[in-house]
């Protein structure tokens, strides 16, 4: 990737021109617009499922969780420029860290809140 390396060096040497990061706009803003529309749709779907009791309560959390993970994927892929960029893939480190934190929050919260079953 000779081109990519050049960009990297440009950023490091920091000609004042490069203050604003410039992404390669190959496809225009369409991924973002599609991502936004899809996110709205998925949120709407989750809301409707709950408000109109469309699914048995037993399966509801699983379905909503699935929609949430789907939306997270869409946002990472389409908004967060996950696949753009140059040089080493630092995004992966951040993603793994985010995954650990998210998982930790969920697991620990379940553990913490489990006391409710003992109390009430």
């Amino acid at each position: 990737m000779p081109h990519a390396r050049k960009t990297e060096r440009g950023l490091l040497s920091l000609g004042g021109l490069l203050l604003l990061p410039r992404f390669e706009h190959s496809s225009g803003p369409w991924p973002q617009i599609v991502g936004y529309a899809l996110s709205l749709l998925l949120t709407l779907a989750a809301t409707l499922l709950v408000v109109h009791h469309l699914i048995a309560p037993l399966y509801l959390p699983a379905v909503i969780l699935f929609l949430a993970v789907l939306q997270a994927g869409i946002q990472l892929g389409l908004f967060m420029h996950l696949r753009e960029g140059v040089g080493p893939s630092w995004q992966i480190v951040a993603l793994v860290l985010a995954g650990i934190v998210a998982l930790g929050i969920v697991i620990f919260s379940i553990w913490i809140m489990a006391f409710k079953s003992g109390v009430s």
Partner: protein
Amino acid sequence: MTHLLAQLFPPSVLRPMELGADASIVIATVAIAAFLTRKRRWGWLWREWLTTVDHKKIGIMYLIAAMLGLFRGGVDALLLRTQLAVPQNTFLGAEHYNEIFTTHGTIMVFFMAMPFIFALFNIAIPLMIGARDVAFPRLNAISFWLFAFAFLLFNMSFVVGGSPNAGWTAYAPLTELRFNPSVGENYYLLALQISGIGTIATGINFLVTILRLRAPGMTLMRMPLFAWSALITSSLIIFAFPALTVALALTMLDRLFGSSFFTIGHAGMPMMYVNLFWIWGHPEVYILVLPAFGIFSEVVATFSGKALFGYPAMVGSMIAISLLSYGVWVHHFFTMGAGAAVNAFFGISTMLIAIPTGVKVFNWIFTMWGGRVRTTCAMLWQLAFIPTFVIGGATGVMLAVVPGDYQFHNSYFLVAHFHNVLIGGVVFGLFSGLYYWWPKMFGYTLNERQGKWAFWFFLIGFWVTFFPQYLLGLEGMTRRIYIYPHGLGWSLPNLVSTGGAYAMGVGFVILVYSIAYSARHKDLDLTGDPWDGRTLEWSMPSPAPEYNFAVLPKVSTRDAWWTMKQAGRTSIRLGEIEPITLPKNTGMPFLLGLSFFVAGLGAVFSWWPVALAGLGGVLALLVWGWFVETGDHVIPAHEVRRSETLPGRLEA
């Protein structure tokens, strides 16, 4: 019409104190507007400040906001302490007291400490790492204006519609609509949500700035410690703030749209709010204190005339603190009763944080050891910080002992503890940074003699206020009570504590006077390096020029400027100066903040057309900002050369 008036001006905003505030707000606004009109300064205000994307000016605006926040929060603190000065006092009623401690805590955390930290990040970080600006200058301005309008929104509550009253933590079910129908909590939810968006953006901005825009040769392990603290703080912000966003959003849905996430009925889980709030809340206290650690690390090295002792250990301990800080949040609600295993786990993880913190304290002390310590104001705050923070940390470890916490929890022992770390750690650090970087912001130093008076009043006042509160806590006085009877042994400590609070107030007044005095009798800093500094921000004239560095520095060591001074490489060569490109100013961030304000206000009062209009403005501005490039402007080389000749730093 009468309905609208009753909504806007319920009895709680028509008390004499609030009416007095109304009057002074009107007078101050009219006076400022008249001044700007008479001096024909409106255009100047718009062009030079409201539309700026220059990180140094944004930093100064954050600083002004933080001082206003300190004033408002400080007045609230004095009102609270006045009520508690004597038993059976009737100065404030119960409801009034609730509103004031809620406002005090919220303002101090979100609208005093946070903007103060962002002020110093903005002013110092790009200069320290040898950058011409932050990575996303316009986003930086957006962050500021979201914060500023959120601050305005929150502050309006006590004169229009009524203050929030459920504590700075806004626990469910205290915020549940059924129990708390006034619009006060809506202000809290919307204002924090809006400023939270700005805060997350700031976290991203400084993370990218520090990772991508360092001067050539400045490896991560050559960065000044303050830059390290900003890097770690930014990552804490990015990982922690979403939990607050969720907690606030769900509470808002409960209050405004009838959902039941945290309600008592309909299988809501109020305790889940507490859990979410502190998942954010504990990292937040490190978001507040790590920047102070960074400031102290710069100040102690500069004023000891020595390189910081144990730099790698300092960096390592900060990273350790930031990782541990995600795993301790239950210590804020041990008494919820989650069970022995949960509490033991979180008690131990909490105590572990004391280890890296202790490492840092020793390193600061060893930096002074054998150095030539100059007791300037910036350094005095550092010297006061060490013992104060150590005691605050020790009482924190006491609170982490679970059985002990069942006694201390929500007593004045806790109030004393968190003020001990928030004031002794955060505020002392911010004041130290204020004195340290002031000449770089404005081109003159603050008066040292007056600064020392302010320091001593504040420090002694601090201990007189908060030491008796530890005793009060042990005597059983609980937090957030507005009245207490005679004969419990609480009367004398409370009176002393109130006296101390007034002494701190005097310290603040002296500080403000000193700022005004120093602005009139300028002690100009002509060298750009008034403290014999070690890092790159001292390599340029004071105040820092618009373009920061005429020629970007090349870094080969830690304490880069110190090395350059030792090697006699302090001036720049004429031939190296090239035209400099900077981003143009834009009014979009200000208008975006305004739109969010309109949307927020609409939501507070459930005026949906207004809220939708505000959101429409937000959307329109975002689309506009997406497609329209604001462009750059170029400072020609001869202009850079001219402004660099003045301080005589050029070499032909």
